[in-house]
Each structure stands twice: as C-alpha cells, then as structure tokens.
C-alpha cells in the first residue's frame, strides 16, 4: 500500500487557558502524498501558520495524531525526542521572505543544511551546486545573497529546502513578495521538484494567481480544513 507523506487526524491546537484560551486548530484532517503539491488557503487568523508550525514540529499540538512518512511523530505527545533532527532531516522550509543567511554565499546557504547533518563540506557543496543548476541559478553559485534579485533569492531558498532531500517541504506564502510571472515560475519549480524528488509540498498562500495551479487545495477556516479538488492548471 502506498505510504502517505503527511497524514494528520483531528489535530487541535489551543493557545492559553481558561477564558483567554484560543482554539487555533479545532480538528484538522489532512493527507498529502509523495510528489504532490497541495495548496493551503485561508483568510488571516484561520490557523494556517499554526498548522504549518505543528507540521514543522515547531510547536506542539494539543491533541490529535500526526504521521510523517508513515511514522507517527505525534499522538497526544511527541513520539520523537529530537525534533531538531526531525526538522533538519525530514522537513524543508520555504518562507515568505527567503531569509537566507546574509553572511554566507549562495552555495553555502544551501550546503549548510547537509553540513549540519554531518555531510562532508565538499559533498554538501556538490549537492548545493546540483540544486542551483536544477533551479537555474547555478550561475549565481558564488554570489553574495545581497547581490541576488528577489526571484533568485526565492529559488535559492527552495534549493535550501531541498538540500537534505526531505520528504516534506512546507512553504509559507513563498510567492507573496513576487510579481505574477515570478510567482508562477516559483510554483512551476515547486511542482518540478515535487515530481523529481517525490517530495510532498504544502504551499500556504493567499495568492489568487497561483491558487488555480494546485490539483488539490485545503481550505482552512476557523481552525478546520475542507478539501477541494483544484484546477491543477500548468503554471
């Protein structure tokens, strides 16, 4: 049987206690398959970022179940002690702003992740160059971050997310700062990478331009998700 990349059941997250308690997630269900790019759409305050933080093992859900690649990582409590290693090895992050490390050049921004995982420097840099080439920014490999355009920086941040070949990438509004053409390019790249590396990608977005490009969309409203088949147009 095919193993899901992400599977969550009745995931809840409550902030605060008593009268001041806020239920950010009220029972989220979601399944994402390897190689799939799924949109997560919702208004501000709907719980998108909270869901992303739970999926990214950054904050602990209050209850529910969460499995990554078939392995249960949360079932009322974390099942894995070392969440830092989990994030490093199994989850890639793409942010609204690229948040590249300004004092590292393009190659080392990507190579840093494998290096943190213990991959030798040379091997990590070779991997970084391959990813940069795949994302058409190989010619900027030795450039400083400040020398890159916004689109180039976002490609580099995607390359960084892929650096440890994680089965999951969480992208938090990755096209927000980009114009339409560049936004669509980023989505096309994400789709390509998902296919090429069989990575499951969740893209949180408000961006009306890219929403039609997803084959599946999860709408989140008041802490609950609703699945919808998307148009899945080619970006």
């Amino acid at each position, binding site marked *: 049987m095919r193993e899901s990349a992400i599977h969550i059941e009745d995931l809840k997250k409550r902030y605060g206690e008593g009268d001041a308690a806020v239920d950010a997630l009220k029972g989220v269900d979601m399944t994402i398959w390897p190689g799939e790019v799924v949109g997560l759409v919702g208004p501000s305050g709907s719980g*998108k*970022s*909270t869901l*992303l*933080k739970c999926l*990214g093992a*950054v*904050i602990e859900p209050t209850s529910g179940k969460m499995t990554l690649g078939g392995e249960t990582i949360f079932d009322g409590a974390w099942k894995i002690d070392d969440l*830092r*290693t989990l*994030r*490093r*090895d199994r989850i890639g*992050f793409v*942010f*609204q702003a690229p*948040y590249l*490390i*300004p*004092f*590292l050049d393009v190659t*080392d921004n990507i*190579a*840093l*992740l494998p*290096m*943190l*995982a213990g991959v030798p*420097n040379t091997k990590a840099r070779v991997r970084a160059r391959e990813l940069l080439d795949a994302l058409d920014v190989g010619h900027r490999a030795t450039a400083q971050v400040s020398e890159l355009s916004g689109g180039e920086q976002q490609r580099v941040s995607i390359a*960084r997310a892929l650096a440890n070949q994680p089965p999951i990438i969480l992208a*938090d*509004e990755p096209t927000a700062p980009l114009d339409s053409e560049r936004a669509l390019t980023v989505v096309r790249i994400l789709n390509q990478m998902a296919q090429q590396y069989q990575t499951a990608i969740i893209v949180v977005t408000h961006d009306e331009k890219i929403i039609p490009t997803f084959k599946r969309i999860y709408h989140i409203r008041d802490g609950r998700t609703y699945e919808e088949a998307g148009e899945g147009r080619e970006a």
Partner: protein
Amino acid sequence: MINLASRDILHGWGKFAFTGVGLGLLIGVTLTMAGVYRGMVDDAKAMIDNAGADIWVVQQDTLGPYAEPSSIHDDVARDILGQDGVMEAGNVAYLTMQIQQGGKDVRIMLVGIEQGKPGEPAFLVAGRPITHSHYEALADVKTGLTIGERFQIRRHQYKVVGLTRRMVSSSGDPMVFVPLKDAQEVQFLKDNDALLNDRARTTANPAFNRPGVPGLLDSILENQVSSHMVNAVLVRIKPGYDAEAVAKQIRRWNHLQTYTKDQMEEILVAKLIATSSKQIFMFLVILAIVSAAIVAFIIYTMTLNKIREIAVLKLVGAGNHTISSMILQQALGLGLIGFVVGKTAATIWAPLFPKYVLLIPGDAILGFILVMLMCSLASIFAIRAALQVDPATAIGG
C-alpha cells in the same frame, strides 16, 4: 562544517574591526595602567639597586630616607666603617626640588654623594664622574640636561659632567647627583636676609657674645651656616658577611635604624607606593568592568541583529551548540582584535608618558587571558538571548 562566526565577521568586517579597535583602545588603557603600576615598582627597585648599598643606616625610629625624613650626622659613617663586615660607608643626602632646564621647570631628586663611595651612580651613559669638590653634577637623561650644560640650584651654577639612565626617585623624578657638601648646603642654606638677621640676633644675645670668652660668637655664627647632617649612610658589606647580621650590629652599637636591601624594598613597594598602587588597582578593576560591559553590549547587540537568521538556523536544525559556538567565537574574535590593538597602542604610547610605564610580557599574557575570559563571560547574555529565540518566529503568522 562552515565556521559561521568567521563568515559573519568577514561579511561585516568594517563594523567588527571598528568595534575591535574601540575595545582595543580601552584594553590599551587598561594595560597602560598596569604598566604605570609596574613602572612605579620598577622605579622604586631601580633606586634601591642603583644606590649600590647592602644596608641603609638612618635616624632612629624612622623609615628614612625615602619614605620619611631622616637626619644623622655625617661623621656616623666613620663609626660604621669600624664595624665588623663593613667594607664601605658613604653619606648621602636626598632632596626633591625643581630646577630650570631649557626654560622649563623640571622636578628632580637632588642626591648628594661622596665620590667613590656607595650612593654614586653605578654607570654613566655619557661623560665622566664628578672629580671636582663643588658645582659638578651627574644628571639622568630624563632631566633633559646635556653634557656641559649649566643649571642653577639656589645661588650656584652647576655643570653637567656626566649622564646616567634609569636613575629616578620612587615617584619617578630623575636624579641629579652633586657632591655631598653642595647638597648639604642646598638643604640647609638660608637666604642672605635670614643670615644677616640670625647674625644680628646672635651677636645681640649676651649669652653667645660674652666679653670674657673670645671666639665663642665666631664659633656659633660659623655653626649656624654650616651643616654636617646627612639623610642616610649607605653601607656596602664585605663578601661572605650577612647583611642582616651586620645591620643588627650597627643598630646595637650606633643606636641607629638600619634596613637591608629587602627591607628597604618592602618599605618602598609596600608602604610608600601602596596607596598609589591601590588607586591604580581600582582603576584597573573599573576599566575591566567597563570593558566587559562594552563587550557584552556589543555582542548582545550583534546577536539581536541576527535574531531572524538565528531563528531560521534553529528551524532548519542547527543545534544550540552551533549557535552558541558562533556567538562565543565572535566574542573571542572581538577580544583578540581588541587585545592586539590594545597591546600595540599601549606599546606605542607608553614611552610618551612622563613617568616610566613598564609593560612586561607576564602582564600581557595575563591581560590576554583575562580579556578572553571577560569576552567569554560577556557572550553569556547574547548566547542566552539566542537560545531563547523561538524557531517558530521564522514562520510568519
């Protein structure tokens, strides 16, 4: 693994270098303060060494001649020479005063010496020793005097015939050596008006001007303008004799106070300059605290400027060790730059100080260790702040 600290430093090297230079100047001041203290101690030791004596004989119940006034008769030296184990004994007179050199006032310690006896400078860097009985002088190069130059003390002109080096008082004033008789005159000579006044008073006193005692008045008048007092007798002992034993003998038979070289050093270092050294130590402590506070503030600010990057690093799996190590290395890097700049600055500006500033390698090594320790401690606040950064802040919402 990439060295994140060095990459960050290279990326913002200008800011880092300027900060390091600023810190370095502060460290330079701290090292110089330590050098000032060492200089004071060295001046005191140099004075004792240069005296060339094994025992200082001074007035009873005093710490003289450097720490307290001491006055003894100059014929005591002859009595001391008769003691077993004494090889040489020389009278010396010390007087701190001001002379004019090249239109400037120079504070000196005037030393009256007997030629060929203890108290004479051990070596000359130029010129010759004093050979005349009067009005010749040996001057330390720090006075600015040159060979053949003349300068005035009271009503007499003195000619510089030789130059010495590192001959200074415990307070750093350069020494000028003159014949003992001249120094005694300088110490006790009154001005003409006072002499005339004293002479008139004595002559008018029937007790001193008795008709039946011819010569009494002349003797008294002569006694009023002459001095046979000195501040100390410096004693050199014969080989094989114990200084403390000889000193004890002198104390017993001559009713004078004696100090061996070690005891005199103790008086100068532990008593005479003790307050100054405590003052300097307080400055050192304050400067060290200020330096530590500045380093802590700089490192803390630098870390706060990188909060977003630190959050991203934590989110993508960088461990606390990686982040702490980055901050600690930067703090140590800052300390290293600061120390190099500080040491260089102190070495450059130390000779410009009016008093002797002695920078010794031991202090530099200790300073380096303290700077590194201080930087390590100062980085604790920044590391604490960095470790408290929530990786979730890298994700919006």
